[in-house]
């Protein structure tokens, strides 16, 4: 009985303990927070991507933009195809060779490659390799040395030595090897130094010095070498690149207005320097047949009207001073007075269409086989644009997509209202809408209310902002909207800009800015971790 009571007492104590051991969770509650979240001062440089702004003496801004739309580069001019050459060497028959005896010595082989109409005499290899398969029908292991005497790295010729297994029955001993040629200088003039595109190789073979016994070589025994030069890209090439005409008609992307999807933009002026740059050691004659501004969204195209269109331009070869290349340049200025370049830009192109003919060595081999090209150089046509930010816009729509991710642990806002305070110091008003995109980039909801316009700054008679103007935009965030935000990861921002006094032009100065502040009036779920 005593024992039972004692057990009961301890059972009582244990039950009390047990009743207190619960699966404890963290407390949670909701609070109403009113607090600033983000702030930012944005000047025009923050609003444009892929751009470089340049300040003028009067503090106005000019947009500087470079677009390269055409290029004739090394891979077009000097394209070395992958080439495989198989050589079979018949050995002297019925001879006995002791271990270490030379079977063949310096057996040379010249191969001239066909590289279109290009006649290369020298090349430095940037990348690529020689891949070999060596077969031996000798009845003993042999040691084979394969050399490319015309390929040197730091004045040392290319040479590899491999041991080939003995034949087994009628099956030859086979070795497959690959060696990189990066950095090798190659003299492609052949053994007599009077040729081109020629690679000279040599091979020596001897019986393995560790062979156990004499080996007899029969007249039917052969050693064959199949070598392939694969993926050869020159760092430098010299020779005669031949005569040829390269016609190119294509389009090139134009990123200056990437984010603009609608509306009207009127520019006061635009200056574009159309440049042809030749950094290749060949003479060239370039003719721009057509240069077109293409707006894929509207389908509108505007072609450039200027005397340079359709007129051949001769441009001499670049100068090579021991590896330092001085390109030759040809440029022509396009502006409001001599072309319709302003209309080209006001078309808000996203592509530039072009048709260019480039004649190489139009006068033949006047360099005596000293045409040259370096990796990365070429014959290029580009546009250096300077567009003063003096413009008028009407419902000019800019868009961008922002990625975001709100981790589950941070999804603490139940609902509320965000207030966007904007002190706008720009002479244009901006209507903003934020769309939430799903995984298929389809709009599933919008964040901003109907009234979502940030007013322009206070502008004087000269269309200069004299004082920022404050606008407050309320962004209600319902629980459903917050859920949509949490469950998606992209926001599509669409902004429409209307300049003050359209169609009058306004200038953008470097001191203009818009100050944004986002204030949250939110119900926040506190869930300590």
């Amino acid at each position, binding site marked *: 009985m005593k024992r039972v009571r004692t057990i009961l007492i301890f059972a009582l104590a244990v039950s009390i303990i047990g009743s207190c051991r619960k699966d404890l969770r963290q*407390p949670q509650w909701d609070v109403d927070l009113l*607090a600033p979240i983000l702030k930012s001062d944005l000047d025009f440089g923050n609003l444009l*991507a892929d751009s470089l702004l340049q300040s003028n003496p009067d503090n106005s801004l000019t947009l500087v933009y470079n677009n390269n739309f055409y290029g004739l580069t090394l891979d077009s001019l000097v394209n070395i195809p992958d080439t495989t050459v198989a050589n079979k060497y018949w050995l002297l028959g019925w001879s006995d060779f002791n271990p270490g005896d030379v079977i063949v010595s310096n057996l040379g082989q010249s191969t001239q490659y066909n590289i279109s109409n290009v006649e290369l005499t020298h090349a430095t290899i940037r990348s690529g390799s020689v891949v070999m398969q060596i077969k031996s029908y000798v009845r003993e292991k042999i040691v084979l040395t394969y050399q490319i005497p015309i390929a040197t790295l730091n004045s040392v010729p290319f040479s590899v030595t491999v041991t080939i297994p003995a034949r087994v029955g009628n099956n030859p001993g086979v070795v497959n090897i690959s060696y990189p040629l990066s950095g090798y200088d190659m003299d492609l003039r052949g053994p007599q130094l009077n040729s081109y595109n020629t690679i000279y190789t040599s091979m020596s073979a001897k019986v393995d010095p560790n062979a156990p016994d004499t080996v007899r070589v029969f007249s039917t025994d052969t050693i064959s070498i199949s070598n392939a030069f694969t993926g050869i890209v020159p760092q430098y090439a010299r020779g005669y690149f031949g005569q040829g005409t390269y016609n190119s008609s294509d389009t090139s992307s134009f990123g200056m207005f990437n984010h603009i999807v609608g509306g009207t933009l009127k520019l006061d002026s635009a200056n574009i320097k159309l440049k042809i740059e030749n950094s290749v050691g060949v003479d060239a004659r370039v003719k721009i047949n057509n240069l077109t501004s293409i707006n894929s969204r509207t389908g509108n195209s505007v072609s450039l009207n200027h005397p340079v269109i359709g007129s051949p331009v001769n441009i001499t070869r670049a100068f090579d001073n021991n590896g330092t290349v001085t390109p030759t340049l040809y440029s022509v200025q396009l502006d409001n007075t001599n072309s319709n370049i302003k209309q080209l830009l006001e078309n808000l192109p996203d592509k530039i269409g072009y048709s260019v003919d480039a004649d190489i060595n139009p006068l033949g081999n006047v360099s005596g086989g000293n045409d040259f090209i370096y990796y990365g150089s070429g014959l290029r046509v580009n546009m250096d644009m300077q567009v003063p930010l003096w413009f008028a816009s009407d419902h000019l729509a800019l868009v961008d997509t922002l990625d975001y991710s709100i981790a589950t642990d941070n999804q603490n806002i139940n609902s509320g209202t965000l207030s966007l305070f904007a002190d706008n110091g720009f002479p244009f008003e901006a209507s903003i809408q934020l769309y939430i995109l799903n995984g298929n980039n389809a709009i599933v909801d919008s964040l901003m209310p109907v009234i979502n316009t940030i007013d322009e700054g206070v502008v004087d008679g000269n269309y200069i902002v004299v004082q920022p103007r404050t606008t407050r935009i309320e962004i209600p965030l319902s629980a459903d909207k917050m859920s949509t935000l949490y469950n998606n990861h992209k926001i599509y921002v669409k902004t429409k800009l209307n300049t003050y006094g359209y169609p009058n032009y306004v200038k953008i100065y470097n001191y203009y800015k818009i100050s944004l502040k986002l204030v949250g009036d939110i119900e926040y779920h506190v869930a300590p971790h």
Partner: protein
Amino acid sequence: MKQLLFSTSSFLKSAPCLAAFFFFISAARTQTSDTSKTNSVSHTVDQVNRVIKPSEHYLDVEIGGSFYVNSDAITTEFFNTFYQGGFISNEKKDRCRKKLHYSNRIGGDADYGISANWKPDSLFHKSNLSMNIALKDRFHYDAGFSRDFFNVVMYGNKMYAGSTADLGNFTLNLLRYQQVKVGLEWEGDTAHGSYGLSASFLKGEKNVMVDAGRAGLTTSADGSNIDLDLAMLMRRTDTSRVGPMAFNGCGFSTDFYYEMPYLTWYNEGLLRVEVNDLGFIRWNTHSNYYKVDSVYHYDGVQINNILDLQNNALPQNNPDSLVKKNIKYGTEPYTTVLPAVFTVAATTYYGKRFAWEKGMRFRMKSNCRPYYYSAFTWYATKKFSATVTAAYGGYGNFNAGMELEFLFPGQVKLHLDSYYLTGYLLPQKCSAQGVTLSLSKRF
């Protein structure tokens, strides 16, 4: 408040602590909480009934633990939700809010341990001398906070738009240490009082101390700016060494009491004066301190380039001007004075079956008000007694409770009490809870 509640709950959620906490009881003679009347009551139970002291020599071994939390604002319901987890609804918060004053307090203790009291026939040639020894794990916490502090933490700052929330006069003290105590008691008679003295070595485990004398949080009317005017000192022990084995400081404390019998009308009585936990802990050189006396202005996280918003580049946990400005921090040793307890109590016996104890207790340096209590005991049988209690003050307001003692065969005694039954019965209105459980055996 949040930190206090977190720290409290983290202690209580510690499984080993919790298990031991309810399984063992601290030695009754060193009880230092609001409810430490256990001392004299259990003593008088023995005196009156004479059931547990059949011989002149004995050895009592006792294990057990106790905890209580009390507040003049935080309801039991609120505290339990916070401690056990779950959603704290606005209704629960509102019930606390109604109890808030300009200045509010919460505090409590949690102890567990083992003790022994040895009374030989003769000790140091004295027949009335006994010796006791105890080993205990102790945790004390208290905080003082303003009404605005509670509102901002639990409701948010929106209600203070265009005004300043006074978060100042906030104090927090979390203290955990282990105690080894050795003491002597002289048992008196009707002509001479009883008295006792003990000394303790303290192993300091953890301390967090915050004193924010000035803390004004100003929210602009439109929410675009927040200013914090803050003067605060915070100290805490080495955060890299935690747990019961952490030795972050050491100290000393002493307890003593004097108990004098008296006669009033035809009834016997005892007057008891007692001091517990008079001592200190010196924390080591790895202890951290933060001193702040500045005004902070926050108006949002600066985004320098709107393109930064792409690719998840939104700055996180970077509240701009709120961090690392005008804060002096470093490591240095410091000393914590223990919240010593002073008690004066008088017990009157009405025959052999009833006793009435009246007392006042005050705890120093702990946000605590004087605690007044009254306990009426009924010695029902030689093996069972029951006590009802009523008290006011301490960390809370009015509380009532009950105490039960059972004597089982084999000299095994079970003690169970809660002086905060009102908190359990009316959790939405009352603000305290606590339990003491002990098991002792006489050899």
